[in-house]
């Protein structure tokens, strides 16, 4: 790894790109063997020291005050005072970054957030950092959020004379782990644990009343109380759920697992929330956590392809559930909802737009279908998917057709190879059936690939758009930008995705994901192993840049697009971007040659 310094730790995260650059260029590395003194007591501190590897102890009068581990700054206070009575000793072989004192002082002056860390006591320091969404800060914010921010299960009520069997059935049908009963004066709760205990007692479930086994000492919180109150309650009483009293008198249940998941934003939690949602509001509530989940995974350094894998499932679940909530089952049995484009490929992390289509079984008609489709697109817009600028959405009759109409369309795309059709075909090739009668899609896909005869003209017209956008890499491999902005999609992502898609069409692969396509093309000897791995890495890198700067944009409340400001990039990011674009350029030439684009 050539990256020298990890800026994600405090307080260095608050440094601006230009400052980071200066910081990095002034960076020095020192090595201290185990037992060697790093700085003697009373010696001047000319540089700020940050431990990279190893262990260093801070000692005073032979007494160890603190032991510093990796990524910790060991002499921030002493640096400001210039000397200290303490001494620092390596207690393991250690590598230390050192940055000249002058630079640090300058940065402290120019960057108040950074300076705060050095100057103030802890309380003031926290306030300074609160302006920034740091991890700690976010955790704090989470703990202070009202309990309703977490997922609250609607209470499942049973009558007081219900049997244990009724309770078990309800738990199964409502996917819940506890039911509530109400007798004359009390409210009681019957949980899975109670059910387990009952089973062990070997009594008949059908005839035993639940009332005798429920607990009536309930712990509850009001819905405006902070999460940490609920957490405290759970810890104090070693219980795994608390009752939430809504302002309108209704009750809900907060499960410990949901609470923890809320704090860690687990994806499967969001997933199950989506699955359990019975209204658009609940769905929106569930989906609202996704943004945090992405941020968190990104911050933890999860590779962009893995984040995409997680998100793929979530996106598809959301689409399916949205449709399910809107359309009655009789419709769903006769249609198939598709997600297309990047969504279909499973490469959409931040929702850039929505591409969807609907196949309708031949002969099926329903008066509400158009309205449902419109509502579907509206719902997605509410969830944060901007409408597709090319109107590739189910509310557009072009993308809502019967199976035979789609067949005609698929034939037309092959014969009428103008630009628009090629674009549609490209989007279609990435289609994934999300919900409904998936056989409709399977038949169409088979129809398409069977009818697809080797057609060089089609392939050339199909591949042509990769020449539409210039790769922003100059003759001397300098990065080119328009007003400091570089469009990652036009500059590289599209070229890679579409080039691979063209090869996939030529090889008749029904695979959708670009990485999977690359893998299969490699196995079929269409891509050489080195080219395949270059393409994979390049695409992943561009997507990670897009994610990183997309998140920053989203945070600033800006509209999501693919533009990144070159000035924001670190030196390392720039270099990698250059290498990546060189791969893109090479790949583009190879596609142009293979598909004879120079004849068009």
């Amino acid at each position: 790894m050539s990256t020298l310094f990890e800026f994600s730790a405090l307080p260095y995260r608050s440094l601006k790109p230009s400052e980071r650059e200066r910081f990095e260029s002034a960076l020095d590395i020192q090595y201290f063997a185990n037992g060697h003194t790093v700085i003697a007591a009373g010696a001047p501190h000319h540089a700020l020291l940050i431990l990279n590897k190893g262990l260093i102890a801070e000692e005073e009068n032979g007494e160890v005050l603190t032991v510093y581990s990796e990524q910790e700054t060991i002499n921030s206070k002493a640096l400001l005072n210039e000397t200290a009575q303490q001494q620092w000793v390596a207690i393991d072989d250690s590598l230390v970054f050192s940055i000249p004192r002058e630079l640090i002082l300058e940065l402290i002056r120019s960057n108040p957030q950074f300076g705060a860390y050095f100057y103030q006591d802890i309380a003031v320091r926290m306030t300074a950092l609160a302006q920034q969404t740091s991890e700690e800060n976010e955790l704090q914010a989470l703990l202070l959020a009202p309990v309703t921010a977490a997922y609250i299960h609607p209470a499942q009520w049973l009558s007081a004379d219900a049997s244990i069997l009724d309770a078990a059935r309800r738990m199964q049908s409502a996917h819940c782990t506890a039911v509530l009963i109400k007798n004359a004066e009390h409210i009681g709760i019957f949980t899975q644990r109670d059910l387990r205990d009952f089973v062990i007692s070997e009594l008949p479930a059908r005839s035993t009343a639940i009332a005798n086994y429920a607990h009536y000492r309930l712990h509850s919180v009001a819905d405006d109380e902070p999460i940490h109150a609920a957490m405290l309650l759970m810890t104090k009483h070693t219980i795994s759920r608390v009752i939430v009293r809504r302002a309108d008198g209704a009750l809900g249940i907060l499960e410990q697992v949901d609470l923890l998941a809320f704090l860690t934003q687990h994806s499967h939690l969001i997933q199950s929330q989506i699955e359990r949602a019975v209204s658009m509001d609940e769905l929106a509530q569930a989906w609202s956590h996704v943004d945090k989940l992405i941020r968190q995974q990104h911050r933890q350094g999860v590779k962009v392809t893995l984040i995409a894998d997680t998100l793929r499932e979530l996106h598809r679940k959301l689409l399916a559930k949205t449709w399910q909530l809107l359309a009655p089952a009789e419709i769903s049995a006769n249609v198939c909802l598709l997600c297309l484009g990047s969504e279909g490929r499973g490469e959409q992390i931040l929702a850039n737009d929505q591409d969807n289509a609907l196949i309708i079984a031949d002969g099926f008609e329903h008066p509400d279908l158009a309205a449902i489709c419109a509502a579907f697109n509206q719902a997605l817009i509410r969830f944060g998917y901007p409408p597709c600028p090319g109107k590739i959405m189910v509310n557009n009759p072009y993308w809502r057709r019967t199976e035979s109409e789609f067949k005609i369309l698929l034939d037309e795309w092959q014969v009428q190879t103008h630009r628009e059709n090629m674009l549609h075909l490209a989007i279609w090739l990435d289609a994934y059936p999300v919900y409904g009668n998936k056989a409709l899609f399977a038949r169409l896909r088979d129809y398409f690939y069977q009818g697809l005869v080797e057609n060089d003209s089609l392939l050339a017209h199909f591949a042509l758009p990769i020449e539409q956008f210039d790769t922003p890499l100059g003759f001397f491999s300098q990065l080119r930008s328009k007003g400091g902005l570089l469009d990652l999609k036009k500059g590289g992502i599209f070229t890679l995705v579409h080039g691979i898609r063209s090869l996939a069409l030529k090889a008749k692969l029904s695979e959708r994901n670009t990485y999977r396509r690359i893998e299969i093309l490699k196995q079929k000897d269409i891509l050489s192993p080195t080219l395949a791995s270059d393409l994979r890495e390049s695409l992943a890198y561009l997507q990670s840049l897009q994610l990183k700067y997309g998140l920053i944009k989203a945070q600033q409340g800006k509209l999501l697009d693919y533009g990144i400001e070159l000035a924001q990039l670190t030196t390392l990011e720039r270099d990698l971007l250059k290498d990546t674009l060189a791969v893109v350029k090479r790949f583009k030439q190879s596609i142009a040659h293979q598909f004879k684009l120079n004849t068009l």
Partner: protein
Amino acid sequence: MIKSNLQRLSLASLMLASSLPTWAAGAIEGAVEKRHDLNLPAIVMFLIFVAFTLGITYWAARRTKSAKDFYAAGGGISGFQNGLAIAGDYMSAASFLGISAMVFGVGYDGLIYSIGFLVGWPLITFLIAERLRNLGKYTFADVASYRLSQTPVRIFAATGTLVVVALYLIAQMVGAGKLIQVLFGLDYTYAVILVGILMIMYVTFGGMLATTWVQIIKAILLLSGASFMAFMVMKHVGFSFETLFQQAVAVKHAGAEALALKANVAAEAAATAISSNAPNASAAVASAAAASKAAVAAAKANIMAPGGLVSNPIDAISLGMALMFGTAGLPHILMRFFTVSNAKEARKSVFYATGFIGYFYILTFIIGFGAIVLLSGEAGMKFKEVSGALIGGSNMAAIHLSDAVGGDYFLGFISAVAFATILAVVAGLTLSGASAVSHDIYASVIKKGKANEADEIRVSKLTTIALGILAMFLGIAFEQQNIAFMVGLAFSIAASANFPVLIMSMFWKDLTTRGAVTGGFVGLITALTLIILGPSVWVEVLGHEKGSEWFPYKNPTIFSMTLAFITIWLVSVLDTSKQAAEERAKFLPQFIRSMTGIGAEGATDKH
């Protein structure tokens, strides 16, 4: 292996090329005298316009000029645009310079080329364009190997393509070489070498400069330049064809009279010599006889009647067949049906192309006659050598005419357009030749489809260089030939080798690989051999004695094409192999697809 061979080949050719001027200059008979004074305004204009044209083509070839977004609609090439592009591909400098020169020389018979080139188009419209587009194939090799066995068909197709490309290239080389020679006063040999190097650079470094838009722009420039010339000619004769033809006839008549006068003088001299028993009497008699023969020929020649160029019916029919059927076998034309988005547009584009090309040939006809009129008499003297021949040969008639009607600046413009046209045509030709070698031979046959992309590109570039060098040699050897005639030879190869295989593979279900390859090669070899043994190469290029040619006709097509068809039929019918049966079975799906554009599976499934 092929790579090292190619490298060696290109190296050898380079060495040859560098040592070439000395022997070549000596070997070529009657190298035209240089133009004595440099026409500076014309040269400046030429350079500016060449730069401008190249700039515009570069701009046109860029696809990224508009920051169009992903969903922006349209942007495809329409049938009209593609028609212009086809016209641009077809209206090479060869037809512009060559046909006008032919009309300038022989009058009416020059039309045979115009008409021949033109009538090939309806044939393409009705028989080929739509079907080719439906099949989605764009080289002759791809179509032919659609249901036939890849390896032999590709070897044949690549060979046929290369021969056609080479012959076609010669015409362009001669045109460009002459142009540079006249304009810059360079020696022809150096001019051709210079042009060759420029062409190689243009194609190898220029990237995709054969794109549709390049051809469109080229067509527009050439059409407007030629229109202007024709307009000026017509203005000169008061917009009356009658006057134009009368004046032309008068010019020719005056020429014949001058010759008759000369013959009389020679006859008198001979008579005096004989009567005085002079020692050179027999020589004087011979020269008198020659002069009178020339005078009789000139007097007999009627530029308003047929027979000036092709006097015997076999040659006429043969040439006509070559021109009509050859177009469909030209590799760089077939590619153009690929550009449009559907079969209907393909048909439309041929319709428009036919219109443009027809109009263009009318222009060349006017230009040819205009040249007869305007390059004669006192005013025409500055365009002629002392001997009375045009400077740079008759191929330069149109160029001189541009000077006569538009002055130095227009001369520069027309030369630049002609030159840029040649470059663009050469780019298209070389690309198809290079792709025949790199794709059909190297990747498909030698590497069995497992070729490395980079190697394929390298082979393609090496082929380009090799073709360029070959074209230089041939360009020097064929200096004296009329350009349109050279193109006619390329057409006769295309009509004898490529066309029969192409047409049979699309329309005859019993065609087999064996039949196609044997018949195709028979056509190719017959045509090539008869051309070499015929008068134009055997006598005029190889310098054998007149009358010693083995084959009396200038154009072999009537024999070679017929032979090709017969062989294809015979061999296919006699082919009873299992493979042949399989290939016949594959005809129906191909046929359905060529008619509908949809795969047979799709077509039957669709109810």
